[in-house]
């Protein structure tokens, strides 16, 4: 079942065409990696899908609903969870409270002025933390957490709205190699078990080729290759972009 359908997506900054005519689809339960050298347009594409940038042209629909022109909070309401390249968490709150916030928002309970927030959705929050493997960190303050753990907090928060689609910008950036593999395992497991579509960018090619079901490769804003890891590995244009002209030999 197709969850995300993108076509003709374009964005220019001044004279620089950051993304041009990008199109792809993503199915439920599928891990799609978006790769490409620095400046290929990955972040721009992400920011258009999550509502921070408005594309110049093209369409992006989530299960038939257009995402274009919606604010990030509205896109979240459609069932899109996000993690950021540089983690964004509520640093003055504990790990559990971070997840509780997302749950409160999901259950529509934020506009309450009297009942204490700390007591709400505790069990559900504990459950989410267990699913991403950090149940024991629930009471720690986010401001003092190790970076790898923060990445998992973000994942738990992103799962709180029972998303159909996860947008993950460099999920393993800044983590130790061992942690990376473990986090990718967790993400892949969640996607398969809960039938969540995952679109992620990543610089760590081991993680990409080990876990992605499919890859799309961007260079200078345009899609140059798409397919299974094996197909992309064999693609001459990809080898050229990453290895230079001599890589085709």
């Amino acid at each position, binding site marked *: 079942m197709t969850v995300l359908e993108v076509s003709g997506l374009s964005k220019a900054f001044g004279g620089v065409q950051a993304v041009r005519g990008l199109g792809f689809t993503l199915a439920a339960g599928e891990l799609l990696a978006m790769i490409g050298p620095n400046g290929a347009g990955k972040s721009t594409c992400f920011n258009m899908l999550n509502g921070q940038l408005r594309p110049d042209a093209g369409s992006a629909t989530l299960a038939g609903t257009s995402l274009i022109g919606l604010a990030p909070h509205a896109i*979240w309401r459609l069932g899109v969870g996000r993690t950021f390249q540089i983690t964004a968490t*509520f640093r*003055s709150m504990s790990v559990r409270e971070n997840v509780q916030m997302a749950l409160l928002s999901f259950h529509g309970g*934020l506009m309450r002025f*009297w009942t204490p927030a700390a007591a709400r959705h505790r069990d559900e929050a504990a459950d989410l933390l267990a699913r991403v493997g950090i149940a024991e960190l629930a009471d720690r303050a986010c401001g003092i957490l190790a970076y790898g753990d923060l990445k998992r907090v973000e994942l738990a928060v992103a799962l709180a709205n029972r998303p159909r689609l996860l947008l993950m910008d460099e999920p393993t950036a800044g983590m130790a190699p061992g942690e990376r593999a473990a986090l990718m395992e967790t993400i892949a497991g969640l996607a398969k078990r809960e039938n969540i579509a995952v679109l992620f960018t990543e610089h760590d090619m081991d993680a990409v080729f080990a876990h992605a079901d499919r890859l799309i490769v961007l260079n200078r804003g345009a899609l140059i290759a798409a397919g299974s890891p094996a197909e992309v590995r064999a693609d001459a244009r990809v080898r050229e972009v990453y290895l230079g002209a001599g890589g085709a030999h």
Partner: protein
Amino acid sequence: MTANVVIQFLNGLAGASSLFLVATGLSIIFGVSRIVNFAHGSLYMLGMYLAWSLIAFFGRGSPFGFWGGVLGAALAVGVAGALVEMLVLRRIYRAPEMFQLLATFALVLVVKDAALWLWGAEDLLGPRAPGLRGAVEILGRRVPEYDLLLIAVGPVVLGLLWLLMNRTRWGTLVRAATQDREMVAVLGVDQAKLFTSVFFLGAFLAGLGGALQLPREPANLAVDLSIVADAFVVVVVGGMGSIGGAFLAALLIAQAKAMCIAIGDVELFGTVFSFSKFTLVAEFAIMAAVLVVRPWGLLGRPPAAARGAGAVEPPLVPPGPLFWPAAMLAVLVLALVPLGGEGYALVLLIDIAIFALFAASLHFLMGPAGMVSFGHAAYFGLGSYAAGLAFLKLGWPVEAALLAAPAIGGAGALLFGWFCVRLSGVYLAMLTLAFAQIVWSVVFQWDAFTGGSNGLVGLWPQGWLKDRTTLYLAVLLVSALGIFALWRMVHAPFGYALRAARDSALRADAIGIDVRRFQWIGFALAGTFAGLAGGLFAFSKGSISPETLGVARSVDGLVMVLLGGVQTLTGPVLGATAFTLLQDEIARATTYWRAVLGLAILAIVLVFPMGIAGALRILVARAGAGR
């Protein structure tokens, strides 16, 4: 009509020059040091007074006496600015932004009293410039020659600043530091020297602005806060750190004001509208329009994010088992105070209760919601005037009039908050100050409705609240309940959502929180509770005046919150208590209570940058560790 418009146009140009000088100094200092120098208006005032004295000393009649005096005053103010940087601000560059602000507030108080001590409370009429005493006839109207000179000063200074910034190494450093000061430090530039020289230049410009204004406006003690509020508007409209923007904005605002005066009275649909009374509304309208279209000002850019982690607030901890019994006991003990008689203590305690509520409402805005307001007194004042007017003009009973206070305070905050939540950080803070200044001016100028500078008198409650003791108990109860309600909201999902938006707007947005909407409601709620405090204030004092909502009151609120410590929820109550007692003690001992207060604040900022509650917590932690 045409002649009038032309004359007012020239008048506007002349007024723009001084405004530009002050605003651009403020802007340059902020650009490099990231310090919002609240004392910038004080430097302007100092420029006026020093010029007055120096001109008298050098001889009023001679051109050397006048121009020597003006230049001497500007240089002296420049040196004063450099000294302030070296002695005070340099020690707190690493402190949270709020403490830097508090330190510059303290300087406002100290400078004001220094001027009072040196030059007295009377306005000092300035000398006219020798050789420029006459007037030129333009279109049959007389325009002072001095105004024509001032018109030229603005563009000349703009040109000189441009040369300084673009043609000298120093200027390159200043521009580089404005864009990325960490990088400039990494490249081995002596930051201390750069900052000191920038303060010298900024202060020099403020001093020059003040000195040049002297022939048009007498030196007076109220000019410091009014000019800094104007300068904030100019900087916000023009764009932080942009010299050209400051010039453009100063012109725009001065012209808008002048045009309002030029239009004068206009008859529309049988009613006479006096545009000359709407100069502040024009200023407000321009600012609002600019901010909606360009949130960072005409020529400004979004602020560069500072690198490195700021101070991280610890998570909220539920109060210990003894907290609520202790708090209730405290309220109970306070309720028993009248048994000891209706002395002065009661008057003081009423003040403390009211200001604790006011400070708590400001804390709600500054702490959990992360929106610093320089103009919170506007909502306090709206509340007190709403209560007072409902009581006097509509003949409402006290209880009903007291309900009008939070309603109108909240309504004002709802209106102004809509604009404020579109900005963040210092931009937001400056905008709140500008709104407060506008409310103050409307109240001050609208004689027929608000009683103008005399205010409203005869607000003594009748009936069961007539008795002082009953009134005290009512104030105590309402304040305590108000503070409790604010506390509940901070711990409720709504308060958490505000803290979430403060911690990371990006993440809040990504989990479905409409950040602006929550901040807007938070802003309105803070205004509502400030309005309630204002209503209580009106009936406990029996009279109110524009001072009730002046900038000084906003500053008092900030000082209370910062004294108590922003991190803790008990902070504002402690801060309000300490501030009210301190102010009362000092005010009885000396006329120069402001200076003493200012020096005390400076000492506290330099010694305990965490506020009273924060310092207490550290002390307790140390005592615990020592055992």
